[in-house]
């Protein structure tokens, strides 16, 4: 038999010499890369230990935040640690929840709408209850507050991760799925070799978005006002809030600068390398340009990292074996011995518990809310209308991103250069800059109104911009060529080509933006600035004031109204538009 001659393609893989077959040695990094990494690891370990020791310190009410700039690095470190912890918890939650939801049709039908509702509820209104509860769990210790802060940040990070992973799970190509089943990859192995890699790229992009969302709530998460008590956690968020309260412009500026530095560092040291690394998970086999990162290259070649990876793999293997021993057989191999209903038993029990919990909660809520007077309800109604008006205005204002986004997206040079910059700018939370607006507009009548709208716009226009850029990049070049060829220019080209093409993306961006705007209303319509309470008419103000003054019935009622509005608008307006976008305006 003649030796087959495959078409020679040089495998790129890892360059360097091949010592034994099947084992390639990587070119090793210069010694100082290893030194830096070791130092970083040591610093991280020290930081975590120090922070942990703080948690058991007694809870000091009315802690004053020291506005000295020398404390900024410490505060930055603490805040980042909080964010990182919340992110890890969100990630684990998302992976587990999405996996559970994807495991059966029944589970999916319940769990995904629940996720949708959770995503629509304004979290900040639940804060007081959460803080009280956790503080009661750990009486007299800061730990309770830290957990509350982490939980709050978690709620701004977890949902889109869960949605994204779920989406990946249900779109695994059929043949890959079958190959995994045929070659008997079950449970943990299936998760690590098929499901997680397949969903890796969307997970990473959504993680970036989650962090951006987390920064947004930092100021709100690190301080809690319950009636007369002002509880604060040391961190960047409370630093900025404290600066705003005292009207200290210098401290405010330094605080914002520190935040920007932290965000840029994270971008360069964490996200860029991750995106470059994730290229190997790309499923389409096209030859598009792969992103590069010098940091990634340096890290990959370091011996420290190799050791970490090796240990993680061994650890992962042990986890896998543990899970296999404890779990019964996977969903793929149905058992013959047990009667069918036994499998359903846990589902039935948890479903029943869930139903009972909802009923009980619903009844309790009803009682609480039923006591409110008619005038209170009308106040809520008017405030809701005001905030609704503001969100609509902010969406309209955000439309400036459409021409800009199209210009960037349709120009490949610009889009390549602008994308990372825009991503960093978008991560900088508007809430940090908000006090500056308040300060500037405080003299103007109706000033807070405008400031609130500005906050909404700033917080949400990035979602629209990203999506419009992505939509513009997706316009096939030959459609554009045809437009040029047939002399379709100006407004007509917008009407017949550009707007329809970006329509689905625009709708997606708007959906995300609306949710963000409502959340932003809670922090922007009722503020403490330079020792004064300023507020404007709006549902967010109602909620924030009720929380501040401990009026729980009003708080509950207003929160429910807000959640109801968001969910209704979502279903009625956005879902319809989205379906229209999907069916008629999808390119190809």
């Amino acid at each position, binding site marked *: 038999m003649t030796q*087959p001659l495959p078409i020679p393609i040089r495998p790129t893989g890892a360059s360097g010499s091949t010592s034994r077959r099947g084992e390639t040695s990587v070119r090793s990094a210069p010694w100082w890369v290893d030194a830096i990494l070791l130092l970083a690891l040591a610093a991280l370990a020290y930081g975590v230990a120090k922070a942990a020791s703080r948690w058991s310190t007694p809870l000091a009410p009315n802690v004053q935040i020291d506005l000295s700039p020398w404390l900024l690095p410490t505060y930055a470190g603490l805040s980042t640690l909080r964010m990182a912890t919340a992110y890890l918890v969100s990630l684990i939650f998302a992976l587990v929840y999405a996996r559970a939801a994807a495991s059966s049709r029944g589970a999916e039908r319940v769990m995904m709408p629940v996720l949708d509702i959770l995503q629509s509820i304004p979290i900040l209104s639940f804060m007081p209850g959460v803080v009280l509860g956790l503080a009661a769990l750990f009486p007299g210790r800061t730990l309770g507050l830290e957990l509350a802060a982490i939980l709050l940040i978690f709620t701004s990070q977890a949902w889109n991760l869960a949605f994204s992973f779920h989406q990946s799970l249900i779109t695994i190509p059929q043949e890959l799925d079958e*190959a995994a089943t045929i070659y008997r990859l079950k449970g943990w*192995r299936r998760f690590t070799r098929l499901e997680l890699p397949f969903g890796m790229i969307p997970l990473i992009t959504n993680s970036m978005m989650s962090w951006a969302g987390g920064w947004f709530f930092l100021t709100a998460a690190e301080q809690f006002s319950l009636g007369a008590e002002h509880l604060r956690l040391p961190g960047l968020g409370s630093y900025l809030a404290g600066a705003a309260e005292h009207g200290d412009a210098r401290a405010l500026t330094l605080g914002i600068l520190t935040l920007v530095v932290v965000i840029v560092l994270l971008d360069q040291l964490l996200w860029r390398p991750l995106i470059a690394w994730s290229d190997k998970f790309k499923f389409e086999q096209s030859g598009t340009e792969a992103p590069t990162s010098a940091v990634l290259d340096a890290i990959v070649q370091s011996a420290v990292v190799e050791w970490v990876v090796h240990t993680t793999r061994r650890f992962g293997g042990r986890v896998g074996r543990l899970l296999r021993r404890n779990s019964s057989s996977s969903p793929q191999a149905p058992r013959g011995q047990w009667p069918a209903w036994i499998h359903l038993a846990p589902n039935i029990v948890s479903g029943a518990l869930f139903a009972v919990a909802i009923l009980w909660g619903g009844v309790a809520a009803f009682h609480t809310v039923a006591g409110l007077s008619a005038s209170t309800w009308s106040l809520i109604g008017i405030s809701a209308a005001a905030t609704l008006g503001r969100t609509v205005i902010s969406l309209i204002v955000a439309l400036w991103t459409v021409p800009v986004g199209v210009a960037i997206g349709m120009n490949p040079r610009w889009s390549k250069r602008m994308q990372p910059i825009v991503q960093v700018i978008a991560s900088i939370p508007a809430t940090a800059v908000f006090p500056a607006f308040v300060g500037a507009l405080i003299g103007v009548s109706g000033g807070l109104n405008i400031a609130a709208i500005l906050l909404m716009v700033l917080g949400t226009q990035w979602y629209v911009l990203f999506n419009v850029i992505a939509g513009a990049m997706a316009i096939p070049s030959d459609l554009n060529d045809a437009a040029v060829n047939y002399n379709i220019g100006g407004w007509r080209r917008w009407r017949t080509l550009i707007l329809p093409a970006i329509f689905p993306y625009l709708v997606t961006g708007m959906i995300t933006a609306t949710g963000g705007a409502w959340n932003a209303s809670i922090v922007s319509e009722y503020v403490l600035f330079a020792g004064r309470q300023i507020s404007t008419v709006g549902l967010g103000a109602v909620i924030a004031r009720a929380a501040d003054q401990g009026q729980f019935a009003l708080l509950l009622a207003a929160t429910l109204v807000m959640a109801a509005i968001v969910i209704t608008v979502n279903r009625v307006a956005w879902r319809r538009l989205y379906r229209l976008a999907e069916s008629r305006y999808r390119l190809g």
Partner: protein
Amino acid sequence: MTLIADASLSQPLSRPILAARDVNKYYGDDRAPVLDKVNVELRDGEFIALLGPSGSGKSTLLRIMAGLMRPSAGAVVSHGQSLDGANTQVAMVFQSFALFPWLTVLQNVELGLVANGVEEAERRARALKAIDLIGLGGYEEAFPKELSGGMKQRVGFARALVVQPEVLFMDEPFSALDVLTGESLRAELQELWTTRAIPTRAVLMVTHSIEEAVSMADRILVFGANPGHVRIELRGLPVAERARKSAARQHLVDTIYRIMTNPNEDAVAIAERRPALPGRRPERHRRYQVLPDVGIDDLTGFVQYLSTIGERANVHDLARDLQLRVDDVLAIVEASDLLGFADLQDRAVVLTDVGRRFADADLDEEKALFRTHALAHVALLRHVVRELDAAPSHTVDADRVVEDLEDAFSSEEARRQFETVVDWGRYAELFAYDDSSGELSLDEETGRGAAHDLRDHAMIDRTDAENDLT
């Protein structure tokens, strides 16, 4: 010499190592099964090919026998035991390779061994051996996106063979490769199989290529569609006669072509070269006329082509010259035959008088001819026009038509037929279809006129009455 596989003539009946018994498969609420009482037996030392047009359920059967799907009725028996869950004696090679893009070639090949709990060192050694066996030595650290199609499929083979499966399943393994690469890989696989270089005891291959089946298989099962069923089991050629251009090979290929180009006739009768006894129905007959999956361009192009090459062509040659798969050629030929533009005589396709006029006509006359003949012969088209005529404001919801079709076909097939009839109806200017609202509406002039004709003349379908949809 009989081509039909007859168990009593071969070696004494050994127990099959894997068998499908009376397998039925329905999807969802479909009333028509995708597979209808299929029986397949795989014995030690056999290479079996499942051949048939698309929609005949061969891939579904493969997946059921691999344990990837459960049959709606019947069972898969492996070594005398009913199958419950994934079939552990089977390894599968996929049409589009199914390699994990984030794993290297070596890691992909090791995949099956990982699940079997093989130790790392031994895993590597066995994987390297399999990679050498299949000719990919040197590519261990490459990622799938760096490989060509043929090399990717080699990885697929290596991955399947490294677990030393008892039975090897292949789902159209060479159809995604170009002709030359496919040839090369096929030859290598055959070498591995015939020289017993691999411990696999039996091979089951799904293919749509008659040439492939004849070159490789000991037994060939020809499937029919709607519903999927085995029409006939043919004995493959002895190894020595599988070389190109032997008379026996030509005869077998001919027979299979003849069987496949006559989907409604008794396959056994065709194989035995005798006319079917009058009054004797084929074992399974289609109760409803199936509209072939052919677009208007393909149809008009084909009639044009046929008239250019001398009004007559051999189906085998057509497949080769037009570089089409067998099922695609058969579908076009069937459509032309249905409309009366061409005649299927034995294995040759002959242009009819009407077909000649169609080929020579200008666009208007072409449409008029198409309209007349389509209405005369295509029951589904008549059905739709009648529905539109009877409906208020002459519009009908598409879903209703699809639902009617689902009475006789699986929902996927129903959807497919609906799309075809819309394509034909639009070309004939009988009706219009608005995709976003999902509505069909009768054409003001030609549509109304045609409906009027149907009403007045009560046109009788020239084909068998039993084939009428309504």
